[in-house]
């Protein structure tokens, strides 16, 4: 691999990591707080992408589309949590099965509404086009750098919220022991609902942000569900730093192996997951169950 190639692949890996982080963080927060494996997470990603595209197409504003994706996917998550999952709280497996059922129906209905076409976003001009990176001496798409910055900002904001605000403290306490949190008089049901809505909204937002890197089409739901699964399995469920580290690790490994030996790249992510599970079954930053 030549130097410019290496830099490009590394940058691709980092920007992909940013995307994985944005997608997986909602998944891991929902799991951490509610103990729900939301297998409809990929569907929320795709749903957000489609809604965002439709809104951006009508209004001509990419930003408005991204906002709509966040809100609509968050609302969908809220409906899912309040309507279907709440009666089943505490029954992990049935909750996971319900989200599977929802993902089947969602995939089919989205196919009916948006068809099998590929949708391209047009982000604002300020973040499109190429840019020359001074020190490294290569050209690189601006939009991908924007995704990197966006993920960093999101990570910092979430970190601040989790460590500094009242909601964040409650959420962290709920991750540790939700029974005690309920026992001290906090309305955990509201925290759960809020968390589910935020996690789902982030998945929807990721649909627009990620969809703008390449495009959005049916089948992307499976791809990003897999990415979320591997990232949280490697990083440890419910951990913000774990998700960040795992996203970087998984994405870099994926990009390097794609560049080096494309036909066996899937095996490498598999080996990474196996290695982590063998050494630390709870994930890099996870606590033993």
């Amino acid at each position, binding site marked *: 691999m030549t130097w410019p190639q290496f830099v490009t692949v590394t940058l691709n890996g980092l920007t992909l990591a940013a995307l994985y982080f944005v997608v997986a963080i909602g998944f891991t927060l929902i799991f951490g707080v509610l103990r729900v494996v939301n297998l409809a997470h990929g569907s929320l990603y795709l749903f957000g992408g489609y809604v965002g595209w439709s809104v951006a197409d009508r209004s001509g504003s990419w930003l408005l589309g991204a906002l709509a994706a966040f809100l609509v996917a968050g609302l969908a998550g809220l409906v899912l949590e309040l309507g279907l999952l709440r009666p089943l709280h505490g029954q992990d497996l049935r909750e996971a099965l319900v989200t599977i059922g929802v993902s089947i129906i969602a995939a089919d*209905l989205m196919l009916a509404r948006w068809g099998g076409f590929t949708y391209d976003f047009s982000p604002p001009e300020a973040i499109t086009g190429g840019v020359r990176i001074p020190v490294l001496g290569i050209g690189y798409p601006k939009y991908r750098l924007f995704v990197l910055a966006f993920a960093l900002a999101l990570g910092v904001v979430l970190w601040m919220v989790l460590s500094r605000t009242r909601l964040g403290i409650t959420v962290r306490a709920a991750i540790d022991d939700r029974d005690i949190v309920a026992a001290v008089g906090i309305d955990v049901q509201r925290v759960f609902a809020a968390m589910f809505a935020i996690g789902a909204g982030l998945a929807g937002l990721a649909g627009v942000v990620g969809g703008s890197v390449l495009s959005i089409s049916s089948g992307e739901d499976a791809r990003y569900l897999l990415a979320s699964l591997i990232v949280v399995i490697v990083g440890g469920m419910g951990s913000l730093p774990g998700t960040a580290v795992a996203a970087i690790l998984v994405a870099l490994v994926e990009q390097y192996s794609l560049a080096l030996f494309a036909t066996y790249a899937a095996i490498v992510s598999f080996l990474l997951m196996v290695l982590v599970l063998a050494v630390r079954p709870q994930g890099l930053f996870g606590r033993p169950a």
Partner: protein
Amino acid sequence: MSPRAVVAALIVLALLSFPAWGSPYFVGRIFTPAFIFGVIALSLCLLAGYGGMVSLAQMTLAGLAGYGYGHLTVMQGQPWWVGILGGIVLATVVAFLFGLIAVRSSGIYFLMITLALGMVVYALANQNRSFFGGHTGILGIRPPELFGHALTERVPFYYLCLVVGLATYALVRYLARTPFGLALVALRDNPRRLAALGFHVALHRVTAFTLAGLLAGVGGLLLVWYNGAISPTTIDLTRLINIMVIAVIGGLMYAEGAFLGALVFVLVTNFASSFTQRFNTVIGLVFLATVLFSPEGLSGLGLRALAALQRILRVRFASAERAEMQ
């Protein structure tokens, strides 16, 4: 003879004579695939019902057997029996490896890890050309031929799938009564106590997973003969989930449920698709309704109905007997 044995005998008799009186469409396009998917779902019922391990990778293992058969017979030009052996061995060995990775976790973690493993195989099958044939997969896979007839002619293939279905069902029911099966159930209910009794918990789980992989592989061979081709689509997310849908609709805890669920699944996909394009939504709704309202599936419903019926009959017979005695 107990009422249950009578019912079972009647069902077997009906299935054996089915090609004589059933329509060819039902024989070839409904019941045959129902047996095939039933065998694959049965491997999940064995794991989930007895071992408490809900795996989403069973279709992957079935698909690997199909890939093994297709690779050996089409790409390597080997005879069919080598393909069968190779396919089964591939599914079993991969199941063993998956088992080693996954058995340290349980519950929804197990579900997630098996799902990730299955989807990694899907990604590999899509990328790799030399073994899996890449995106197009392996086409023109021919079933074994006996006495100059392809095994997949409608009636012989129906009987083959029926016999395999019955045999695997009997095997699972038998296993449940062996010391191994009993330990598996005990392990589902209380792994810690079983470990304290000196059982090797992980080894038991890996063995069960490997065995289930073998079952899934057998189903996968039937499926690849039925389809005549295999591609990554056969093992994509939707197909992995379909097996779960089948097992849950039929009843995850019951071996019968696998076949019952498969029959319902094939019927719904066939008939719903004739009046609506959105048959996946119908499947999804049926599945959701099962999970929400009848977690034990159709088998659970059926058994409850049967028990209620027996109660009613017993009351009636008992009162009739009393009347006679007086």
